[in-house]
């Protein structure tokens, strides 16, 4: 049969190695050297490419870990700085409140002598002014490390799976490396996005703090304007003859 003939022809053909070796043996020394160089290239290439992919893979993994560590370190640093800022802020607020409340109590004691029974209302108002708006004390960067680590582990698994599945290092090696690097980039972007969320929270806190500061400043100006009118009234009262 024709198919059997073709199979037997294929089976009877010399292998690539045999053909090149034969060519080298029959072509004489200069020819032989050139052929051997071709042979070296053919035989050496898979190993060289494989090594390149392996090194690139290891480098990419190390890079991913380095990037994750650096981003985590930055997140920790941001968290610590944020905690310090919150501690300092709450300390200042407590001082302001304590001083204000002490003055309000003193005022209340004197007010009672004038028959003002709602003397404690000033103390309540001072406490209300010193209330910290909700969400201002929340730490923005918390929990980042665990998420980044989980991402790193998944990434490493992906790379290992990829390299294991393609251990033969065929002509697809370049594509493998490309996908590996693409995975690296995706992972880096994920880490960046997580960091961005931390930044967003701090941004909101800044906005909220500035908003409340603006309200209080406006209220203070309004209050001082009323005080000025009260002083004017006192001036008029002083002129009333008894």
């Amino acid at each position: 049969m024709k198919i059997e003939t073709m199979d037997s022809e294929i089976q009877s053909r010399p292998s690539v190695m045999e053909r090149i070796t034969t060519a080298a043996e029959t072509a004489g020394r200069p020819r032989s050297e050139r052929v051997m160089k071709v042979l070296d290239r053919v035989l050496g290439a898979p190993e060289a490419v494989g090594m390149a992919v392996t090194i690139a893979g290891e480098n990419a993994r190390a890079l991913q870990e380095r990037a994750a560590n650096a981003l985590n370190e930055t997140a920790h640093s941001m968290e610590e700085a944020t905690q310090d800022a919150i501690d300092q802020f709450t300390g200042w607020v407590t001082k302001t409140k304590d001083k204000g409340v002490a003055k309000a109590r003193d005022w209340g004691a004197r007010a009672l002598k004038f028959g003002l029974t709602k003397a404690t209302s000033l103390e309540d108002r001072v406490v209300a002014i010193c209330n910290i708006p909700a969400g201002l004390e929340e730490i923005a960067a918390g929990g980042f490390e665990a998420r980044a680590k989980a991402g790193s582990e998944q990434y490493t698994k992906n790379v290992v799976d990829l390299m294991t599945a393609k251990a033969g290092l065929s002509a697809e090696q370049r594509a493998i490396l490309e996908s590996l690097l693409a995975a690296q980039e995706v992972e880096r972007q994920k880490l960046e996005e997580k960091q961005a969320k931390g930044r967003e929270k701090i941004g909101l806190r800044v906005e909220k703090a500035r908003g409340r500061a603006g309200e209080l400043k406006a209220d203070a100006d309004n209050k001082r304007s009323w005080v000025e009118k009260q002083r004017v009234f006192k001036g008029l009262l002083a002129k009333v003859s008894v």
Partner: protein
Amino acid sequence: MNLQELKQKLNEVGFSDEVSAKLHEIIDAAIVKGSLDAVAKQQMMDLVDLDVEAGLLEADTMDKMALTLGSFAATNEKILEMNDEKEAKIEADVEEAVSQIEDAAKAAPAVPTL
């Protein structure tokens, strides 16, 4: 300024409810009486001083809180700024390292087929 005019002015000035009620009580009594005696006048002056003091305490506390909040916001902004700088450096380092890996991969010989 007579007592009626003073009462009129009193209505135009914002006092706390309790102080306002006391001031009106004294001035109304003075209007009925036809004059404001020195004791009642001093009492009114003291009440005004009390309300002024309370108003100033509130305004001062508001200003201090506004400053504290402003400072807190500025500190957070500084933290963000420093964080952005650090992240930009990390990103630049990663970009450089990825480029080096890509260059190394491009330099690897292709596998010829026979």
